[in-house]
């Protein structure tokens, strides 16, 4: 972020900043949820790979 943009953001009113914080927090939560889903998916795939009882395709 450019320092000019940071200065503009810093000069917003506290109320406006709090609204932005809510958006940032929602985005952070969405990202965290997406990361968890990806990790779960990866675990499932790894689990299948390591499961030697499953038939292997030739």
């Amino acid at each position, binding site marked *: 972020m450019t320092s000019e943009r940071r200065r503009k953001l810093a000069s917003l009113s506290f109320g406006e*900043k709090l609204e932005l914080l809510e958006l940032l*927090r929602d985005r952070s939560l969405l990202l965290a949820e997406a990361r968890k889903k990806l990790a779960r998916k990866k675990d499932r795939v790894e689990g299948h790979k390591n499961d030697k009882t499953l038939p292997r395709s030739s």
Partner: protein
Amino acid sequence: MQADGVIGRYAIGGAVGATFYLEPAATLDVDVFVTLPGLSEKTLVSLTPIYEYLKGHGCKPEGEHIIIGAWPVQFLLPSNGLENEALSQAVQADAGGIPTWVMTAEHLVAIALQTGRQKDHGRILQFFDHKAIDHAKLGAIVTRYGLDDKWKKFKKRYFDD
């Protein structure tokens, strides 16, 4: 809550408090430092009355937080002299038409220095970037609460001073 006598003074600290002085930075919760009214030093302190009061007003507890509006809020009692002073010298801020209290920039920096995690150091640097600090005031707080060594180390690490 103040009017109903559930809490005494309060002040927003942490990342949301810092946002009063800086550009908004992502955070998941709000830290609110509170004093409880009518407590002597010998009283066993509990935040239960705050949580009970808020539950009675439809707020849902979630772990160590309670959801107020859209935000998980953590209530904290000041645990040392610095936090007590930060609370007593908080400044009034307007949050979209609602008057509220926020710790001063210098107290937020001193608390961040005392806590000393990487993210706290990052926040201190932001305060310096934005020239949001009264250096004399910060210096006095740092000395008053025995943070001179930490401050020297911080400056050496980040300002090579």
